[in-house]
């Protein structure tokens, strides 16, 4: 009961409501714009959160996360371009349905299923995050090391990229985290005598570079691309027939999305692909998928929004990001002096339940904004890239500079922009770099401390049941992409 009251706290704070309002609005705009999204947006807004108290800052970031994930569906349905990677599966049926003159129905279903998926996942978050946090009390250094390894092996199954390329990208991310003074012995590593590198490479320059700047370079190659827009009259709430057809799909995808979200490093993109393929597998009309199936939209959208709450579970309970955007939220927590983990649940329940409540409200807010404002948000995509991207560049540069007031950070951002562009061009996902970077210190620190405990005997890891379980799960995670690709070939 107390926790429920704590969850309702944002409703009674005008400041938090205002933050939620702007966060949801900003998240929707970011989600609608192809190439941007909650990860880039969160990274760009991070410096501004320094003016806010920790709860408001995290509420702002989480509302951007929830709304941005939904916003991608608007562009996916109306211009056949996913606003966010998580909305890729929505294009498959959303756009064909819009072409048939049913854009309003498609968006209505996307809005309802996203909201249900989002709310479902917050409920999962409220129940499972404290349980996982309690379990984390059993974790020592070896268990955290095994968990981090599990998170990294999960990178193999991120998105559609090659699993081995994803692992290379993840290892590259960890390698970046080793730049600077070794945090245990203060020995310089990869600094090449540059003083600014002694403190290591910051998270924000890398994220902004890999997401915003590399996207700017990508957009420079797509200037002749013409979008075929479908006109939208108004968003329509699904009919009773549509509800009857899709309620099982929405619930199933909400469950799938929440589960996928909880897995370290996985996020909305994987969740929506699995949600979509499972919707097709269980459907009575699988032949309609890809031609404008309302179940396809429900399956993909409920799953990607359900992944938002799920991804917050390991982020808050263990300090292991559940997705790229939660890696940004994790950075936000650290910047504001909040250390995620079991102690957070014991010492600051009002902070955590405030976040849970805010996520719940954000899901309701984007339903209202999406339902009444989708037509306006769709018009945002009309802003030409030749005006939009120079502006994003200005914000990226100032935002990156502002955190440490270092011009080197800006140059690092540009360098990672170029690296990110070529990575994406040759099929390397940039998300594993982010996850690797944020987990790097944890992996190395826990490995070294474990080896001190074990007196240098590596085999001792196998004598710890929880660590052994995570290592077995890691092996399964490495095998999963092979199994999934075989299955997908059968289904899609």
């Amino acid at each position, binding site marked *: 009961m107390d926790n429920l009251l704590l969850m309702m706290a944002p409703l009674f704070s005008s400041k938090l409501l205002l933050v939620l309002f702007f966060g949801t609005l900003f998240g929707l705009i970011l989600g609608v714009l192809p190439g941007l999204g909650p990860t880039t947006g969160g990274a760009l807004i991070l*410096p*501004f959160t*320094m*003016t806010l108290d920790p709860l408001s800052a995290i509420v702002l970031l989480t509302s951007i996360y929830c709304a941005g994930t939904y916003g991608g569906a608007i562009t996916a349905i109306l211009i056949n371009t996913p606003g966010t990677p998580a909305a890729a599966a929505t294009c498959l049926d959303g756009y064909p349905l819009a072409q048939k003159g049913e854009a309003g129905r498609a968006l209505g279903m996307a809005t309802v299923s996203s909201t249900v998926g989002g709310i479902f996942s917050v409920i999962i978050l409220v129940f499972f995050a404290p349980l996982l946090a309690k379990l984390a009390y059993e974790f020592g250094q070896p268990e955290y090391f095994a968990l981090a390894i599990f998170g990294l092996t999960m990178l193999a199954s991120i998105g559609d990229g*090659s699993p*081995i*390329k994803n*692992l*290379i990208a993840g*290892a*590259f991310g*960890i*390698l970046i985290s*080793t730049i600077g003074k*070794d945090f*245990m*012995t203060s*020995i*310089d*590593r*990869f600094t090449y005598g540059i003083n600014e590198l002694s403190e290591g490479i910051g998270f924000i320059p890398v994220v902004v570079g890999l997401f915003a700047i590399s996207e*700017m*370079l990508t957009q*420079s*190659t797509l*200037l002749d691309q013409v979008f075929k827009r479908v006109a939208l009259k108004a968003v329509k709430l699904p009919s009773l027939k549509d509800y009857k057809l899709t309620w099982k799909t929405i619930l199933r995808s909400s469950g799938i999305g929440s589960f996928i979200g909880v897995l370290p490093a996985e996020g909305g993109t994987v969740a929506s692909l699995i949600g979509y393929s499972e919707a097709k597998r269980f459907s009575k009309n699988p032949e309609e998928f890809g031609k404008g199936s309302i179940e396809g939209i429900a399956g993909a959208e409920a799953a990607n929004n359900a992944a938002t709450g799920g991804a917050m579970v390991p982020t808050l309970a263990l300090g292991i990001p559940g997705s790229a955007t939660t890696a940004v939220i994790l950075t936000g927590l650290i910047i504001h002096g909040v250390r995620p983990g079991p102690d957070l649940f014991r010492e600051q329940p009002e902070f955590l339940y405030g976040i849970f409540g805010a996520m719940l409200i954000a899901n309701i807010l984007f339903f209202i904004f999406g339902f009444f404002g989708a037509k306006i948000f769709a018009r945002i995509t009309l802003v*030409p*890239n*030749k*005006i939009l*991207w*120079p*502006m994003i*560049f*200005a*914000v990226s*540069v*100032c935002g990156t*500079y*502002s955190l440490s*007031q270092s*011009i080197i950070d*800006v*140059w690092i951002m*540009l360098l990672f*922009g*170029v690296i990110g562009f070529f990575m994406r*061009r*040759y*099929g390397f996902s940039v998300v594993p770099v982010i996850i690797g970077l944020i987990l790097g210190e944890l992996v*190395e620190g826990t*490995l*070294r*401390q*474990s*080896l*001190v405990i074990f007196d*240098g005997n590596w085999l001792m890891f196998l004598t710890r049941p929880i660590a052994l379980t995570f290592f077995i799960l890691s092996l399964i995670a490495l095998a999963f992409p092979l199994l999934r690709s075989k299955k997908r070939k059968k289904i899609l």
Partner: protein
Amino acid sequence: MNNVRKQKRANKSLPFFFKDEFKVSFIIIFISTILLITTFSFDIVPPILNRGIQPATFPKGLLVLIISLTLIVYYLSFKKPWKIEKKLPKTFYLTLTSFLLFVLISKTLDFFLAISVLSIFVSYYWGERRIFYLLLVSIIFPIIVFVFFETILGLRFPPGIITNIYYQV
């Protein structure tokens, strides 16, 4: 369809060192090897201060992993060749040049000026010709961003010919 077949034939006929698979794998392995050699120059801590492993061991392991995985990726590309990427357009190289211009101007002249020059350069070469919009992206918007960061976040931008005038006013 014929074009795709022609392109596939063209790719097959390319010498191996011109193929993307080789170029990308070579660059990754080359850079990783240089970094691996660098790790041998890291200081070694005495056993009493050593925390589990030497500071160089972890990056060494990572680099060996990256090299090994890249070799596997290259080997697999024999069975399944990579998708042939389109040639990069002129606008890409111009955008890349604008980044270099940004670094040069921000280092020698002014941070604000660098943003303005990049914005007008990119906007113009991406096809914008209307004066108002060019002014919007190169002067009006950067001023708004500057003032916003300066007043809300209390940020002090690096000194330069324009930034100095702003701070004097």
